[in-house]
Structure formats: structure tokens, C-alpha cells
């Protein structure tokens, strides 16, 4: 009975933490937060779930191997840098849309890449360690 409550609680907390982390990622450009912090928060959430319920749940929940998160994150960050190059500017030059009001820009994609890599990396090790 308690374990069911615990499981539900951790899942709930886990989900909340994930939402929180995405919020942190989003607002990072303007207030404390950003890719690292968001990823660390998310990783902590996943870690709680892993410790409480074992790695299987997280693996199933993720659906893909965490290594792919790393690969995708790296690709995203570097891709964000390439956008400037297409416009004949140096690598990693920030490009914003629309250029006047700056709602979205490559630095945000870059930060998302950071988020994915850090999260993916921590999960990779965490899951592998728990499974070993």
C-alpha cells in the first residue's frame, strides 16, 4: 500500500520536476535558470524515480536510449551555430526571429542542446550504473 503511494508520489514529483525543468530552460535567458540548471533539475527528478522504482521505469518512459539524447543535443547545439554561418557570419553568431522583437533565437536552441546533452549524459550513466 505504502509502496503504491510512494510510487505514485515519485511519479508525480518526477513529472512536476520535469515541467519545472522545462520552465527553467525557457526562462533561463532572462532570469536565473538555463540549460544546465534545467538539465540538472530534470536529472534529479529522474534520479529520484530511478532510486525509488529502478531503472526499468525510466527506460520505458524515455522510449529511446539516453545516448540518442546526447547525440541529438550535440547536433542541435552545433546546428544552432551553423545558422549564422549560412548567413555568412561567424560560427555561433546569434540569429533571432523576428529580428526586431527577438522572440526566438539560435541561442535558445543552443541552450536546448545543452539541456539535452547534460540530461542524456547523466541518465546514461545513471541507468547503466543501476543496471550493472
Amino acid at each position, binding site marked *: 500500500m505504502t509502496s503504491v503511494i510512494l510510487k505514485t508520489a515519485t511519479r508525480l514529483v518526477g513529472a512536476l520536476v520535469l515541467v519545472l525543468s522545462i520552465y527553467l530552460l525557457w526562462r533561463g535567458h532572462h532570469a536565473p535558470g538555463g540549460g544546465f540548471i534545467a538539465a540538472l533539475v530534470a536529472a534529479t527528478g529522474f534520479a529520484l524515480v530511478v532510486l525509488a522504482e529502478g531503472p526499468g521505469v525510466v527506460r520505458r518512459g524515455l522510449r529511446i536510449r539516453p545516448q540518442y539524447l546526447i547525440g541529438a543535443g550535440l547536433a542541435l547545439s*552545433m546546428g544552432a551555430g551553423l545558422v549564422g*554561418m549560412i548567413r555568412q557570419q561567424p*560560427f*555561433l553568431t546569434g540569429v533571432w526571429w523576428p529580428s526586431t522583437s527577438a522572440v526566438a533565437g539560435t541561442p535558445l536552441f543552443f541552450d536546448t542542446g545543452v539541456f539535452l546533452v547534460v540530461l542524456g549524459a547523466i541518465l546514461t550513466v545513471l541507468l547503466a550504473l543501476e543496471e550493472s
Partner: protein
Amino acid sequence: MSNLLIYPILLPFGTAAASLLLWRKPALQQAVSLAGVIGQLAACIVLFSAVTEDGIQVLQVGNWPAPYGISLVADHLSVLMLMVTGILGTAAAFYARGELPDHLRAKSFHALFHVLLGGLSGAFLTGDLFNLYVWFEVMLMASFGLMTSGQRRAQFRGAVPYVVINLLATLLFLMGLALLYGLTGTLNMAHLHQKILSHEARGLLTAVAFLFMAAFGIKAGMFPLFFWLPASYHTPGIAVSALFAGMLTKVGVYALIRTFSLVFHHDMATTHGVLLVIAGLTMVTGVLGAAAQNAFRRILSFHIISQVGYMLLGLALWTPLALTGTVFYLVHHMIVKANLFLVSGLGRDINGTMDLNRMGGLYQAYPVVAVLFFVPAFSLAGFPPLSGFWAKLLLIQASLQVEHYIVAAIAVAVGLMTVYSMVKIWIEAFWKPLPSSGTGGAAVPYSGWKMAPVCVLAMITLVIGLGAEPVYRLADTAARELMAPQVYVEAVLGGGRP
């Protein structure tokens, strides 16, 4: 603005990302990996020709002007190192393909390999000291992974001191960075050059300079900070150890050259005087260490140390000729040393061991391998007309010119000891018949994946030796750029403003 500078960094990292995304497809990973090294080599060649034709190239990353953003700078020294990186990376990747069964289980091998290459390129290109720290970490982390990838007990034994001591170096580097930032308020090396020109706290800067010297000295394997190197270099796979032997300590040497020409130029009598003493001790210690060894790769590992001493010697003497010698030595040494490590792998394939007591008979049965060892080995020993001869000649000549006779004598004596070591390997592994305790004897077919890189590197050694003039000119230009950093500083700080 020249985005050419980013490709040698970006291509390996892109390849690494791609090989991660191809996690379940080892064959495709392998193909992408080979394509990646060739692409990087091409990028290095393009950048190389741009620099040799148009002079120093600068990229202000993110379009933020120096010293606010991070500058990538390619001068002659950088592109020479980069060229060798490209060549050795390609060679090692092909050789690794021949070695693959060992690595097949570690699917992360290709990604780590390319991360290492990218880190190397970054370190050679960056004009920012903190960014250099980041690239050092990239290389370090990748090297940790590659160092332990075979999971043998000896690897763990070697990896622990390797990891601990290198982390210590990293922390020293970071500490030095913090203090230097506190003193100057900048991290851009060209900007640091200017700041230090007019800085008042010279004595304090010298203390900080020594902190950097220690940090890079550990990486470079200089006396008495080298212990991690002989403890670990004989443990990883052949292709990996060849890449390590060729590149990793030389990044340390590169960093020393860069910082002690561009940044810490305020008290050369002290800093370079200390370096000179260290250089002598490094040469002697390394070569004596090698003389005491009796395994193929261990001998080679200790020789790295003694040859780092030669390179430091040129930096310490601080004359155009001496620096030219250092640059020439770097280029020559990286290729030759990596090649010797690769050849040691061929020897192990045949004899089943690296222990010279149990090796033998290679000369009779494998004449091609014998030639492929002979060329780099005697180049390392400084025999003309191979590449090592010119490198040694330049450094001896440089020390004679400034009448540092003791150093010249050490360089000569160490040269002779190097001959001794190379002859020892030759006699024991090649000339001596296979002892009864040996395990080899079964005919091992030449593997094209392994032979091709060894042959190409041996050819390059010959070409550098016979066509020393163009290499000398490049090294000379690099040395002159180092001695007159004004051009570098102007290229970084002058242009590129948005």
C-alpha cells in the same frame, strides 16, 4: 572573418554526434568515422593553405569582437600542429579499423576518438586561455575513455595515476586562470599580451606564470612532472596510444610555447631560464628511463619525455633558430613517434608480446615491417637524411650559437643514448632470432588497414628529411611569428569588429 577555422573543430564533433546517433549500426559508425577523419584532414589542409598564403587567420566566434567573445586564431604554428593532427588522426583511425575486434564492444570508441581530435584542433586554434582550458578538458575526458576502453587490469593500473595527475594539472591550470583574470581582467591571449606589457605586478605575474608552467608541464611530461606518462602509455590499444604519444604531450608543449611567447613575456630571464634547466633534466631523465626499460612500447614512452626536453630547449633558448628547431622537432616527432607506436603494434601482432626478451625474428620473416621500423626509429635517433636529423641539428646549432655548451653537450649525449635505445629494439625484436620462450612464429598476414598508415607516415618522415627546406621555412615563419607577437595581436584585436 574566416569560418575556415571552425571546420577542423566542428567536423570531428559532428562525426562524434553522428556516431552516437548511429549507436545500433557499428558498420555505419565505422564508415562515418573514416569519412570524418578524411574530412577533418581536408579541412586542415584548406586552412593550412589559407594561412600559408594569406597569413594569420582569425575567426571571432559568435561575431563578438575580441577580446569580448572567443577568438580562434590560426598562425603558422597552429596550422602546422593542425596538419599533423589531421594526418595522425587519419592514420590512427585507419589503423584502428584494422584493430577493431577489440573495440567493437565499446560502441563509444568512435565518438570518443573524434571528440579527442576535435579537442586537439580546438586547443591548437583557440586564442582564448579559458577556451583552451575547455579544450584541454575535452581531450582529457576523451583520453580517459580511450585509455580504459580495453578494460584490462593493466589499463586500470595505468589509468588511476593518469586520471589523478591530469586532474591535478587541470586544477592548477584553472587556478592560474583565476589569478590571471584577477590581475588583468581578460582571458584573450592577444589582449593578455598587451595588458601584461604595461602591468605593474611583474613579480606576481611570474608566480602565476610558474603555475601555468606546472600545469602545462604535467601535460607535456616535463621533468619532474611526467610520472603519469610512463605509467599509462603502454596500456591502451595501439591506435589510441599512437595518437596519445603523437599528440597529447605535444598539446602541452604547444600550450607552453604559446603562453610563454604570447602571454608571459614580461620576465623571460627567469621563466625561460628555469625552462632551460628543466629542458636539460627532462632530456636526461627520459632517455635514462628508456635505457632501463625492456618492453617495446615502454621504451618509446620514456623517449617521449626526453624528446619533449628537446622541444622545451628550443623554447627556453628563445632565439629564432632555436624556436624554429622546436617547431621542426614538434612536427617531426609527432609523426615519427606515432608511427613507432603503430609499428610496435605490428610487432605485437607477430610476436604476441611487447617484451623484448620474448620478441625476435621480425627481420627475417617480415622485412617490410623491419624497414617500417628502421625509418622512424633512426629518424628519432637523428640520423640523416631523415627528419630527426634536421630537428636535432637546428637545436644543437641554436644552443651553440648562444654558447650554451652544457646544454649542447646534453643534447648530443642524449642523442647517442637515443641511438642506443632504438638499436636495442632493433636488435632484440628484429635481428635476434625468436627465442624459445617466444610465442609467435605463426605467419601473420599484413593487414592493409594497419600497413597503409604506417607506410604513409614513414613516407612523410622521408619526405620531411629529404625535403627539409619547405618544412624549415614553415617552422621558421612560425618561429618568427612567435618571437614578434605584434602581428598576432593585431590580427586578433585589430580587425573583425562588427
